[in-house]
């Protein structure tokens, strides 16, 4: 349409200047709009325009005017040459044009592919990969419905838009294939416009790109799993060696004491007999504590700690721990500084006892004899803050966090026995209570701190029934 208008306007201009121009010049000038038309609208309109121009040239500019008859032999030559040149130009320009279009299409595909692979780079999550692939294909194909199915350990389907697929089978199915086999497929519904070979090829490339990304993600996950396994294997070896060493110490004492009691070395009325029996008893308790620690640790590790919360009185817990530890604490002075007004706290009584037992026994182990171990508690905002401080050796700043790690021992390990589990059990229990635990160096020693919330699911302790009557 525009081609016709262009020819008409050019013809008008030439017509007005007809007297000033000769026929040959007009024919030459006509080649300009012809070239433009072919360049703009392609080969078909170009050739058509060539024929129309041929007729207008003949009709308006070759004498006799306003007829298609030609009198001068020279004019015939002009017309024939013009037609040949016009057609040849049209074809040449048109072919160049088609080549350009193909190149542009290829470039667009390359860009889309580039965008896809950039988007997929570094993705470890198959859901994200699937979402990107589905969105890209859906947008490019302008499909009415698209379904992406990914197999694997946890297969999933991604649908665009999110509704039930059409009743009919999909127009195109592209498998997502990698070296390991088929990882899934893209199902595409598009009825209005048939899917061209070029599009199929493009989607196939998209699918293989995504297959690579999926495979990479799976491999990365497998690798990190392998690393975790290796780490836990290393830990287990550490546990075994630490545990068997720790268990053997009390066992040796028990065995030595029991066998000498059984044999004839110790006479029945010897005072050594009492010592040996006491050693067996103490070491059996020690052994029991070690096994208990191991059980606690495995429960924390498997996330099966589940505190049984109840409203408890902190001084009661501390009191029963201190009563039980009386024998261990003979060399130290224990001070308790807990205000009478401290509210009830929602904790598991037994687990909280465990925390105090471990923190206090740790303090007793490392702090020199005749020093003070102080237990202090205060309400701070929404939680209660408890501090167990001792006058023992300080811990280097960089190790303050690590002493709560499993099997981590400070350099004094050779002096002191223990599995290196006590503090990490404390951390497990406190964290299961939504609290926080940390250690800090204080002026004359080391302090363990922890907080536990004062509320239970946001609630304060229920009011007690009134009981004011005295008998």
């Amino acid at each position, binding site marked *: 349409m525009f081609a016709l208008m262009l020819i008409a306007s050019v013809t008008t201009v030439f017509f007005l200047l007809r007297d000033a121009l000769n026929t040959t010049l007009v024919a030459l000038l006509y080649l300009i709009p012809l070239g433009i038309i072919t360049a703009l609208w392609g080969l078909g309109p170009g050739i058509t325009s060539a024929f129309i121009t041929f007729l207008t040239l003949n009709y308006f500019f070759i004498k006799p005017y306003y007829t298609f008859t030609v009198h001068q032999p020279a004019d015939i030559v002009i017309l024939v040459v013009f037609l040949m040149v016009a057609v040849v130009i049209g074809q040449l320009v048109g072919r160049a044009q088609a080549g350009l279009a193909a190149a542009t299409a290829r470039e667009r595909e390359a860009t889309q592919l580039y965008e896809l692979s950039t988007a997929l780079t570094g993705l470890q999550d198959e859901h994200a990969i699937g979402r990107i692939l589905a969105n890209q294909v859906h947008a490019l194909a302008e499909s009415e419905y698209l379904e992406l199915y990914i197999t694997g350990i946890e297969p999933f389907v991604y649908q665009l838009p999110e509704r039930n697929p059409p009743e009919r089978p999909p127009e195109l199915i592209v498998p997502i294939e990698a070296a390991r086999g088929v990882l899934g497929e893209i199902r595409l519904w598009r009825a209005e416009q048939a899917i061209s070979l070029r599009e199929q090829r493009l989607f196939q490339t998209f699918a293989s790109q995504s297959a690579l990304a999926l495979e990479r993600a799976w491999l990365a996950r497998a690798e990190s799993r392998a690393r975790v396994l290796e780490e836990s294997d290393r830990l287990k070896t550490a546990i075994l060696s630490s545990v068997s060493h720790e268990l053997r110490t009390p066992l040796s004492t028990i065995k030595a004491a029991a066998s000498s009691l059984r044999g004839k070395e110790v006479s029945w009325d010897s005072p050594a007999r009492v010592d040996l029996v006491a050693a067996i*008893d103490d070491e*059996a308790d020690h052994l*029991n504590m070690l096994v*208990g620690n191991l*059980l*606690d640790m495995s*429960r924390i590790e498997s996330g099966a700690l589940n505190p*049984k919360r*109840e*409203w*408890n*009185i902190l*001084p*009661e817990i*501390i*009191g*029963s721990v*201190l*009563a039980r530890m009386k024998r261990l604490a003979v060399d130290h002075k224990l001070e*308790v500084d807990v205000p009478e007004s401290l509210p*009830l706290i929602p904790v*598991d*009584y*037994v687990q909280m*006892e465990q925390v105090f037992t471990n923190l206090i026994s740790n303090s007793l182990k490392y702090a020199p004899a005749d020093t003070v171990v102080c237990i202090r508690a205060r309400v701070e905002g929404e939680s209660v803050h408890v501090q167990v401080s001792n006058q023992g050796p300080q811990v280097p700043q960089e190790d303050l966090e690590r002493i709560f790690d499993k099997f981590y021992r400070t350099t004094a390990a050779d002096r002191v026995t223990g599995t290196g589990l006590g503090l990490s059990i404390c951390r497990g229990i406190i964290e299961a209570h939504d609290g926080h635990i940390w250690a800090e160096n204080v002026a004359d020693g080391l302090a363990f701190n922890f907080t536990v919330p004062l509320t239970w699911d946001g609630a304060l*302790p*229920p009011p*007690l*029934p009134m*009981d*004011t*009557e*005295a*008998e």
Partner: protein
Amino acid sequence: MSNAPHILVIDDEPQILRAMRTILTEKQFRVTTASRGEEGLTLAATTEPDIIILDLGLPDMEGVEVCTRLREWTQTPIIILSVRDSERDKVAALDTGADDYLTKPFSIEELLARVRVALRHSANRKGAQGAQSKVVKAGPITIDLAWHIVKRGEEEVKLTGTEHKLLAYLAANHGRVLTHQSILTHVWGQEDADHTEYLRVYMRQLRKKLEADPERPQFILTEPGIGYRFIADE
């Protein structure tokens, strides 16, 4: 020997059975052993023991089920044995009728103390309602259950109604463990059976009035995760 108390031990570990048999026989008890729940139930019915010691970790039956089935027909005291950290099982067994518990590993003194308490309570139960008029003494504390008088030394201790009810229940069952639920049900009523905070607060008040050092009680003892135990003079 035939009138010596008879103890039935139900435990699946042969080493434990061997040790128990040796020690308890040495202490002049008659001992019968069973290694399975069903066998234990049969022996309980045929040998009529005075005390049953029951391990909660039997291979063929839940310990709680053994307790329930025993309590269907007998009031013989049951002392349960279990490992640490199974408070829920212990409480369930105690609330279904077991009388006391011991956590493995335990000392023989503890076992014998439990056995003595269980025997005394079962004797009281059989000997009509004699226990009602009793006076319980624990160190400087005297509790007259019939007259509702509590003294510390020569001085009378003023208790509120609830405190008195609580102390009376503890003292009447002295030596025995009482679960949170059983105390709450007995003192406050069935509807308050899960309000352990009442117990915490009232026990603290009682300790302040009765114990020399309320933080380190000698008579009103906490059984972590289970309940309380009142220790009186034997």
